[in-house]
């Protein structure tokens, strides 16, 4: 084989990218179905039962096909270029997060030495896409959704970043792979349980702030169905809407996967004797558990108002995560 190394690397990366795209699509299809079932059972219903016979498992596939073959509608007054571009920006924002998710030891798109930093940066891209969508739609409701989203972003980003710094301090590195390696050997070594209770508080803050990041109840303010009709994607239909949807579910997975990577030991088994089970099982399992909790919360709680979200983020999450960060730093310096 005389293929030059750079081409080989590129080929591997492309294969990985296709793999991640496939994973994301399958995950989104499954998660939408799963969410319907979860919401149905929370609400004492059955949910989809017909399509595909077994508990309506193929309902989302049918819905996606319907969305894909729908007429492509762009409002006359819309800014057409931005309108077309926005869903892809949102989607890329959530897809780029997958690059540094360690599915297992050495199964990672790119083990950046600034992995955590990178994640915080690229997931913020989603908001740019939302702003573009809201502005380009030329619809007042969409504009409100976009503005709320921008206001929301500056509120949750800081607690998220500060909470993610806790494991970084404890691990002494920003590489996702390295952070997971440091948590080997059973669940008591996971960062969420070390420096108890500070990192646990950090984990909880991250989880709640990540609900704001994924625009889910109680922080689904930018798309608040009963207030803003659908918020920033009110004018979108068909395939573009499907891409927004895909990105939303992709984002849910990304934030949950990050939480499980930096706090819950990533692909490490909870007990040493369970290590024969491959890493992706634990990684996806942990992330899915968090996704399940996200869904559970969504179907239980009402929605906060936009100023209440600010209050929660700036006056509660922010001081707590600051104090947390200082205390963890102190702990690391004193205890080691």
């Amino acid at each position, binding site marked *: 084989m005389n293929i030059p190394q750079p081409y080989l690397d590129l080929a591997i990366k492309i294969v990985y990218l296709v793999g991640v795209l496939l994973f994301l699509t399958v995950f989104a299809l499954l998660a939408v179905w799963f969410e319907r079932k979860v919401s149905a059972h929370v*609400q004492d219903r059955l949910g989809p039962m017909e399509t595909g016979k077994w508990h309506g498992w193929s309902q989302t596939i049918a819905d996606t096909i319907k969305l894909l073959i729908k007429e492509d509608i762009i409002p006359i007054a819309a800014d057409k270029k931005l309108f077309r571009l926005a869903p892809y920006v949102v989607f890329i924002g959530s897809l780029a997060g997958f690059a540094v998710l360690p599915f297992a030891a050495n199964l990672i798109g790119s083990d950046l030495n600034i992995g955590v930093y990178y994640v915080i940066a690229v997931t913020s891209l989603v908001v740019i896409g939302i702003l573009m969508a809201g502005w380009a739609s030329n619809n007042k409701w969409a504009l409100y959704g976009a503005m709320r989203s921008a206001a929301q972003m500056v509120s949750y980003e800081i607690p998220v970043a500060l909470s993610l710094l806790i494991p970084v301090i404890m691990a002494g590195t920003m590489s996702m792979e390295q952070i997971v390696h440091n948590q080997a050997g059973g669940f008591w070594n996971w960062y969420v349980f070390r420096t108890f209770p500070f990192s646990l508080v950090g984990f909880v803050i991250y989880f709640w702030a990540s609900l704001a990041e994924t625009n889910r109840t109680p922080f689904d303010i930018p798309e608040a169905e009963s207030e803003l009709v659908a918020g920033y994607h009110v004018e979108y239909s068909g395939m573009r809407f499907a891409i927004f949807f895909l990105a939303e579910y992709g984002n849910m997975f990304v934030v949950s996967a990050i939480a499980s990577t930096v706090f819950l030991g990533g692909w490490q088994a909870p007990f040493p004797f369970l290590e024969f089970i491959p890493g992706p099982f634990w990684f996806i399992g942990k992330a899915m558990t968090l996704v399940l909790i996200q869904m559970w919360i969504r179907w239980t709680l*009402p929605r906060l108002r936009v100023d209440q979200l600010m209050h929660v983020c700036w006056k509660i999450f922010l001081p707590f995560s600051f104090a947390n960060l200082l205390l963890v730093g102190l702990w690391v310096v004193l205890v080691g």
Partner: protein
Amino acid sequence: MMETKELNIPLGMTPERWEKFNLVSRASGERMTLQMGPQHPATHGVLRLELETDGEVVTKVTPYIGYLHRCFEKMAESVTYPQIIPYADRMDYLSSMNMELGYVLAVEKLMGIEVNERVQTLRVLVCELNRIGSHCVALGTYGLDLGAWTPLLYLFQAREHILDLLEELSGARMLFNYIRIGGLANDLPNGWTDKVREFCDFMAPKIPELNDLLSYNKIFIERTANVGVMSPEVAIAYGVTGPNLRASGVDWDMRRDAPYSGYENYEFEPQLGRGEFGQVGDCWDRYIVRVREMDESLKIIRQALDRLPDGDVKEKIPRSFGKMPVGEVYISTEAPRGELGIYLVSDGTNKPYRVKARSGAYCAVSALPAFSVGVLIADLVAIVASIDIVLGEVDR
């Protein structure tokens, strides 16, 4: 100068609050007009609100109605008295029994018919059942508008139970056409009262469950307490009635204060807003008053079941309505969405000369601009949900 300034203060706003609000909203000066509805998910049908907004602050609300106007009053002039009952059903389609009762009582008053006690008791029974069903929808959609989906489904289960009962009774699930002039369409099916008792036992624990899930939820309280405070003065000035009026602390319930259909024989307490988490008359009060009213309705249903006397459900009334007494009557009843007043003018023919319906929801909508200025859009959604309007009744 001072005078004009004070005149501009919207009713229901204190001067201090108005000044504070002006400081915030006049700073930027630019307003945006926003059409909320008629196809907006939070306007409960086809209400259109024209909002003037400054950022997310609503500086002016103008409700526009008429999208569901179905000419009830005009149509009533061209059909005979019994034929109007199905039209009355369609006013507030969520509490058709109460609508029927109001109209039928007016006709009976005009004709001077006294119905027997069984009919009266059964009317109270079905009306209270329907009131619970109607409040279930009101509270469920309230939660829905604030982003809580699940209470809606739980409440619809309870309502489903009621609809099944009423279907067994009248053959219809929403528009019953059950209460007739001088009686009822038919007597009870076998075993129906036992099923109602079963329902009471089923419903009683549902209310604490709802309280756990939604009423005392911290987020829900934050969203609704101190929001959209309707002072008693505003409520009375705009003729707001029913649960909305009682939530503002005004002790007024037609069932107790001007009893009809034998309501004076039942023990129940009109529930008033107490301002537990904020001010009296805020959105939370309007919510909890309805929750507590469901309890009271259950009480009335149980009493009605206990006393249900024997009798004929069809009184002897003239076969045709050809010879009606000439004159006019007005009767008002307590429907789930406020006072339903029916004004009837008869010219002696078999068709009424004029029918006028006074609806509680209409007054509640008209009061909207008075107490929802200076709130956020999200609050406005809560306020519209809290006054619980059915556009069928508003537009008639």
